[in-house]
C-alpha cells in the first residue's frame, strides 16, 4: 500500500460576540479547548503550555482514535498565539501549526486563523479528495462549540 503525505493550508475567520480578552482566555484554556476540539476525550498537561491529547475524530462513517501532543507558543494575550499539533492514529497522522490572531470588532472579536498541516497515512492517500472539506468542517465545529462555551467562561477563569 502506498503511503503518501499531503500538505495543506487552511485559513479563515470567525466572529464571536464577546470581548477579546474573554475569547483569548477561552481558546488558550485547556479545559475549554478539550470541550471544543472535536472528539477530544482528554487534554492533559505535561509541561508549561504543553498537553497530551486523545481524540476520537472523524467524519461520518470514517472515524479513528488519535493520540497526540498540543503545544501553545508565542502567547501574546489578548491578540495572538500559535498552536502546534502532532497526532497519530490508525487512519494516519497529522502534524500542523496554526496561528490565531484576534481583533476587536463592533464589541465582538474576530478570530483570524491560518494553519499549515501535513497529513499522512491512509487518509492522505485514499481520502485526499476529502481532506480540505473535512478540515473545514472540523474547524467549523471547533468554533461553534467555542461560541457555546464563551458565555460560561465569562464567569471568570476556573482554577482547580
Amino acid at each position, binding site marked *: 500500500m502506498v503511503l503518501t503525505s499531503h500538505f495543506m493550508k487552511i485559513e479563515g475567520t470567525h466572529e464571536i460576540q464577546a470581548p477579546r480578552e474573554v475569547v483569548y482566555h477561552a481558546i488558550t484554556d485547556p479545559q475549554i479547548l478539550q470541550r471544543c476540539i472535536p472528539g477530544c476525550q482528554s487534554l492533559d498537561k505535561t509541561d508549561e503550555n504543553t498537553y497530551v491529547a486523545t481524540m476520537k475524530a472523524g467524519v461520518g*462513517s*470514517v472515524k479513528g482514535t488519535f493520540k497526540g501532543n498540543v503545544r501553545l507558543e508565542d502567547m501574546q494575550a489578548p491578540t495572538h498565539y500559535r498552536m502546534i499539533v502532532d497526532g497519530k492514529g490508525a*487512519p494516519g497522522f497529522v502534524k500542523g501549526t496554526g496561528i490565531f490572531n484576534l481583533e476587536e470588532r463592533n464589541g465582538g472579536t474576530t478570530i483570524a486563523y491560518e494553519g499549515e498541516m501535513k497529513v499522512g497515512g*491512509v487518509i492522505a492517500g485514499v481520502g485526499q*479528495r*476529502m481532506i480540505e472539506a473535512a478540515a473545514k*468542517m472540523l474547524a467549523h465545529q471547533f468554533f461553534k462549540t467555542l461560541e457555546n462555551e464563551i458565555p460560561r467562561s465569562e464567569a471568570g477563569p476556573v482554577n482547580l
Partner: protein
Amino acid sequence: MIPAQFDYVRANTIDEALALLAQNEDAKILAGGHSLLPAMKLRLAMPSLLVDIGRIKDLAYIREENGGIVIGAATTHYQIESSDLLKTICPLLPQCAGHIGDMQVRIKGTIGGSVAHADPAGDWPAAIVALNAEMIIASKSGERSVKADDFFVDLMTTALEAGEILREIRVNKSTGRTGQAYVKMHHPASGFAVVGVAADLSLTGDGKCERASIGITGVAAKAFRPDGVESALNGATLNDETIASAASHAADGIEINGDLFASADYRRHLAQVYTQRAISAALRSVPPA
C-alpha cells in the same frame, strides 16, 4: 489490509436491526457494503458490530403508491437502473443509477446505504435533492420524514441520528411535459463524480420553463440545489443562451472542494459546464407537444 475485528449479525426485520443498534454504540448497519466495507478494509471505519439488513425482503421494492413513487432503502442501484417502471415515470433515477461505480458495485450497493453514507462525490444525492425526495427514517420511537434539502447536512453527515435507519425514499412521478437528465464527469481512476448534475425540468404549454430543479454533487461538502440557476430558468424561454447564462450561477455562494485532481477554480468551471449540459439534455428528453 483486512478489517479490524468485528462481530456480525443478520437482522430479519427492521425492528430487530433497530434493537441491535440501540444495544451497541459501535454498531453499523450493513446493506450492500460497497461504501462501508472498503472503509473497513482500510481501517478508516472500525465498527465492533455489523448489523446486516441486506436480506430483509420488505426493504427492497419499487412501486407506485398514493400517487407517487416509493423505493425501499435496500433497493440496489441495479434494480433501479433496470426498472422499466422508473424509466417511464421517473427516468432520472435509472439514469443516475447507471453512472454509479461499475456493474459489481451496482448489483450489491443500495440506494439507502449510499445515501446514508453521503459521500460528497456520490451520485444519488444529486438526484435526491433535484427530485425533492422525502426520506423516511425509522427509529425505536417510530418513523419520521425528512425532506431531501434537510437530509444532507454536511460532509458525510446526514440527518440520521444514532440508532436510526433510513427505510424508504419517496419521489413524485414526473407528469406533463417533463424532461430529466443526469450528467457526470467521472474521475478517471475512481469513477466518482468530480462533478455530477441532475436536472428535472417541466415546460409550460407554450414551451417555456415552468419549473427547473437542479442537484449538484461532487462540488461541495454535500449535494445542493443551485438557487441562482433555478430562478434564472423558471419562467424563461430555454435556448442555448438562456441555458448558458443560467448555468453560470451553478457554484454561486458555494464553498467549493479543491483536491489534487481538480482545484476549486477548475471545479467551479466544471459545475457550470455540466449544469449547462444537464439542462440541455433534460430539455432534449421532453416528449414533443
